[in-house]
């Protein structure tokens, strides 16, 4: 899930011929001033913080400028701000257009239909979640035939477009669909899509690229995302690693088992701090690597819950014992383990030799982990 900032999304939009306001992304107030002076950003203009979080308008992260001095000042005021936890490093300056109406348009996956779905609404400019379902048109698109003419007509009708605006919509829809397919997007959203004169212009761009397709799109590998630094390292090592609000690290194998373990932990008063899914592995080195990554998150305690299937319990135990040797004494933490399944006895013996007890039942082992982290039970 590579979430692209607005300006990156618009770079892609431009490649696919999407109609856009004229503008430029800048990284300093001086750059903003010279962009306006050079005419690459016509005045009056909009000055927008390039952060991934929504609600920029209400949050003061979008400003307006009518003179070069105002553009410079607004850019300077926004750059470096922290907005919902994100530092503003780029600012997008764009011409301010005379907007007649604001529409909504997106394409995403409908998992139940197993088809992409275009969503269109005449109620643009607000979060789509706040729009009544009856005011949203949902058009499934079959990947073998693409967005057909009759579906385009339905969308035009829903958006209340006639005449030349329908041709403009056609351009927008073609770009939207091509970006979704060719860039392996999970979401392409234009909100608002503005009616300006008798044409359309994409005022915002939200593009999310699918991680798993990165082998086809190396250009997105460099993109800064909203992962934490540890999550970023984990991603490179191909470990499923999610940082949460609590203080107990959970290592399990398999996403479902890891989630279930977190659920039980929370039920008994524990606060999960890290979700680490080892996946199916039979390489002790990968276990060591994962465990050391967990140590970097500085958990109050770690709970290991393994059900050996493809993964063998002794492999995990070996990797874990090796990792425990490598963690510096100052960073050590209590460890509670429960390993079951394939080669269970061997695994338990290896752990025991390293001073770790493996408990049998999920419930009792979770309670022990919560106690080890200093929680009540």
């Amino acid at each position, binding site marked *: *899930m590579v979430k692209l900032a607005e300006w990156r999304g618009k770079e892609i939009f431009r490649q696919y011929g999407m109609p856009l306001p004229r503008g430029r992304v800048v990284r300093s107030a001086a750059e903003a001033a010279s962009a306006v002076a050079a005419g690459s950003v016509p005045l009056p203009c909009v000055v927008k913080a390039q952060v991934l979080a929504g609600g920029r308008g209400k949050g003061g992260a979008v400003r307006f400028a009518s003179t070069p001095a105002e553009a410079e000042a607004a850019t300077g005021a926004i750059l470096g701000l922290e907005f919902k936890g994100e530092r503003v490093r780029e600012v997008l300056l764009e011409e301010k257009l005379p907007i007649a109406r604001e529409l909504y348009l997106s394409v995403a*996956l409908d*998992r*139940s239909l*197993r*088809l*992409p779905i275009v969503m269109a609404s005449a109620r643009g400019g607000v979060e789509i*979640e706040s729009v009544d379902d009856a005011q949203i048109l949902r058009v499934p698109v*079959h*990947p*073998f035939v693409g967005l057909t003419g009759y579906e385009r007509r339905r969308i035009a009708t829903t958006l209340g477009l006639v005449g030349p605006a329908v041709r403009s919509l056609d351009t927008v829809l073609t770009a939207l669909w091509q970006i979704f*397919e060719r860039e*392996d997007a*999970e979401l392409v959203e234009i909100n608002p899509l503005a009616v300006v004169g008798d044409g359309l212009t994409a005022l915002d761009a939200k593009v999310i690229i*699918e*991680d*798993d*397709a990165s*082998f*086809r799109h190396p250009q997105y590998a460099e993109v800064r995302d909203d992962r934490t630094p540890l999550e970023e390292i984990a991603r490179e090592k191909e470990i*499923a690693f*999610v940082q*949460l*609000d609590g203080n107990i690290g959970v290592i*399990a*194998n*398999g*996403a*479902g*088992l*890891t*989630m*279930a373990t*977190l*659920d*039980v*932990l*929370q*039920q008994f008063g524990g606060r*999960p701090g890290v*979700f680490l*899914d080892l*996946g*199916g592995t039979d390489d002790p080195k990968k276990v060591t690597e994962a465990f050391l990554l967990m140590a970097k998150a500085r958990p109050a305690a770690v709970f290991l819950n393994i*059900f*050996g*299937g*493809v*993964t063998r319990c002794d492999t995990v135990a070996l990797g874990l014992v090796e990792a425990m040797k490598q963690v510096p004494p100052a960073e050590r933490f209590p460890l509670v383990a429960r390993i*079951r*399944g*394939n080669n269970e006895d061997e695994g338990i013996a290896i752990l025991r030799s390293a001073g770790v007890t493996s408990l049998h*039942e*999920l*419930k009792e082992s979770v309670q022990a982990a919560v106690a080890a982290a200093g929680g009540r039970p």
Partner: protein
Amino acid sequence: MSVLVGPDSRIVVQGITGHQGTVHTRQMLLFGSRVVAGTTPGKGGQSVEGVPVFDSVQEAVDRTQANTSVIFVPAPFAKDALLEAVDAGVTLAVVVTEHIPFHDMLTMYHYARSRGARIIGPNCPGIAAPGKSKAGIIPNVVFRPGRIGVISRSGTLTYEIVNGIKEHGLGQSTCIGLGGDPVIGTTFVDALPLFEADPDTDLVVLVGEIGGTAEEDAAEVLRSHFTKPVVAYVAGRSAPPGKRMGHAGAIIARGKGTAASKLEALRAAGAEVADFPYEIPDLVARTLKERGRR
């Protein structure tokens, strides 16, 4: 009888010469599956665990009448492998491979469907009917023949639950691991009718997780077209929104896909709901007793 696999399943393993392919071919053979062929382009003529290797699936089908494929090839080539299997006439393909782009899977799913073939997965442990056949990677040891059906979006959690059922003295008719991706070839909605029709299944354990609306969709089926008792569990009630929890499909997006919504739908449709996985075996036994089966 069993669901989708059985004594007539003639399995071809695509990517048989890779590490995973070889390991699980052996496990499938030990389970009693008829693994009749393997494929790896350029390695035709070899054999793995006594199973002949061919260069193409078409050759494997022509020579061994394989009808079921288990796919272990790496994600960038998985779409191609599936299309090859479907074109060669395979009617059931278990795609174990994870990290397949969902755009690829859309093509795979709709193409397979148009050719009358079914996909299980991707990113799934596959399917097993104890005493009959296994196509996939679910550990052999967790099974025992019986009359409980299991349908799950998880891998290891499924093993733990299936194992729990065994340790409780019960057994399984067929167990399907649907896979943890956003687009899967066989969903709860697709699988439930197969268990409804299976005379060897008395009760179905449905193991869901956060993300999407597969469990809500399943609840619709339970409500209208399902007569057997169902015990349901949904993982991820503690998961925060917007975070992908290990599975590509396990994400609460825009307020949709929460465990609460799923549990409520399943409960309202008459399923017995377990709050935690370790409660499942007991609940299964109690439900069977109350509903007068076994």
